[in-house]
């Protein structure tokens, strides 16, 4: 299942659905990188509101996405992690260290704006 990626100005917004397979995640990683390059995006929001389970693979891939996109000079922020999912993640030891997180899309975009302002 392909993850929809929307372009909003200089930002890209990827919205993840619940039943996400490993292949879907890897596909997303490639697709985001391609579009960041294509549109010279300044930032990416990955919205995981609908994700019901974040396991080690998902967490690793989100970190990969963040690092790869940073190499292109853009920031990434993960938004919408559900309370139950956050709880399970920290129990499992997945803290997404080095990855910016925000409550929701609105906060995520605000974060990217702030980063863009402080770095320009």
């Amino acid at each position, binding site marked *: 299942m392909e993850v929809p990626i929307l372009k909003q100005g200089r930002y890209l917004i990827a919205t993840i659905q619940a*039943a*996400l*397979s*490993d*292949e879907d995640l890897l596909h997303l990683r490639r697709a985001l990188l391609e579009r960041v390059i294509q549109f010279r995006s300044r930032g990416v929001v990955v919205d995981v509101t609908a994700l*019901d*389970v*974040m*396991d*080690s*693979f998902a*967490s*690793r891939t989100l970190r990969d996405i963040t690092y790869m996109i940073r190499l292109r000079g853009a920031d990434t922020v993960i938004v919408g992690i*559900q*309370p*139950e*999912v956050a*709880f*399970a*993640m920290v*129990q*499992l*030891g*997945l*803290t997404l*260290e080095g990855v910016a997180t925000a409550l929701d899309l609105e906060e995520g975009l605000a974060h990217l704006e702030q980063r863009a302002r402080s770095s320009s």
Partner: protein
Amino acid sequence: MADDIRVLIRSNLDIVTARQEGRTLAATTGFSATDVTLIATAISELARNIVSYAGQGEIVLRVVAGSNAKGVMIVSRDSGPGIRSVDDAMRDGYSTSGGLGLGLPGVRRLVDEFIIESVPGRGTTVRVTKWLR
């Protein structure tokens, strides 16, 4: 009471199936939203280990009754290479980078009871239980 739910694990797609079955079972058994997620996450990690290290195996889910409580048991079984040192695997060398090794210490934190048997060359069985609070 109810019967076993068996999910054959042969590919990454089966990981999603297994955890969704687990989610449904946990929800109908009466677990809170948080515990449902913990159970689904544990299943996801166990199934992932099967795919990564054994190639194939199965996840069995069942509702169990204790002396005073109800719970869900997850059995993860494979005939893969097995774990040479279970002690090492269970040591918490799990830093925040997550995904080091088998992630078993992490799974143990998600559940109430955790039993693992592994014979190198023969396979591994992990049996975890979570009780309804």
